[in-house]
């Protein structure tokens, strides 16, 4: 089974029905996969803070949400994470493409990569780093944990996890 199908299966198995995305090349396969699942309503957003607003509303409406985004968006969403998701105590799994890590071809991506874990730690956001494909085995538990504790939880997925970035 492809890694994209495996991730999507875990989302569906955990009752995630509302997913918003801002794309990244590494996430293209999983976005394509969720689009094919009738259990999931997929609504692309234009910016990740907007997406978190959509997820907050969906959760209050009784649907389990998730956001799929790139780690550069941590720089966009600090205020929304603090004053909406954390302040009102809402669950939000964040499946994050961790650009700027090993096998990254674009130098500028490293500039946010070096801040990503520090920012998440500063925000007291539980953070998991998927580096090898076998790490995906923890996703099911991470999703259960997220909806148990009503917190935003970050799942950082680097290029090595996705099997390399392009020709790298």
């Amino acid at each position, binding site marked *: 089974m492809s890694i994209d199908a495996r991730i999507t299966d875990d989302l569906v198995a955990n009752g995630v029905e509302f997913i918003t995305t801002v794309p990244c090349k590494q996430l293209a396969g999983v976005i394509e996969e969720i689009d094919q699942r009738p259990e999931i309503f997929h609504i692309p957003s234009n910016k990740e803070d907007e997406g978190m607003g959509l997820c*907050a509303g969906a959760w*209050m*409406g009784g*649907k389990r949400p998730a956001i799929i985004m790139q780690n550069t968006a941590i720089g966009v969403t600090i205020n929304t994470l603090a004053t*909406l998701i954390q302040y009102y105590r809402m669950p939000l799994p964040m499946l994050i493409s961790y650009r700027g890590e090993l096998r990254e071809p674009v130098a500028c991506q490293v500039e946010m990569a070096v801040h990503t874990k520090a920012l998440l730690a500063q925000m007291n956001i539980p953070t998991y780093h998927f580096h090898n494909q076998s790490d995906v085995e923890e996703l099911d538990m991470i999703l259960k944990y997220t909806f148990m504790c009503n917190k935003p939880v970050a799942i950082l997925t680097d290029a090595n996890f996705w099997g390399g970035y392009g020709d790298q």
Partner: protein
Amino acid sequence: MIRSEILKEIAPILRDQLVVCNIGIPSQELHAIDDQPSNFYMLGTMGLSSSIGLGLALAQPKTVISIDGDGSVLTNLGTLPTIGNNIPGNFILMIIDNGSYGSTGDQPTYAGMKTDLAAMARAAGCDNVVEIMAKDTGPALQAAIDSGKGTVMVVKCESGNAKNPVITMDPVVIRDRFMKAVAS
């Protein structure tokens, strides 16, 4: 008319609906005029009233009214294409457009200058956009609810704020009683 006068007039309509209310003075005014468990007060996160309301409307069948401001829509302009392409029949975005940042001292916004939010909403793909004067808000809001069509309302009014205390209710209490109202 200023925003608080509009809210006073439409309070009897709002009290039977799910309302997501914009950060700052708009939430303080609605809270003082007619506090309801079915009101979700934003205590932070400028700009996301329309996004939270859209997510809520897409997730369940009850009518949702997002009360927003011109300044807040301008800070989250990406919301208009998302609404334009996904709006369900039970979502109403009511932009109270007083041409100013009311909560921060009434500094002018671009919506009070050359920028036309109703035209921007139409250009973003919103099919039902109504632009009205403040005094017509009640009937227009009721018509939007009755139509069962997703609607963006731009309500033109004067700049100004009523004096009310800040909301001291705990955010988790606001959210919990709101979710119970949604589920009831």
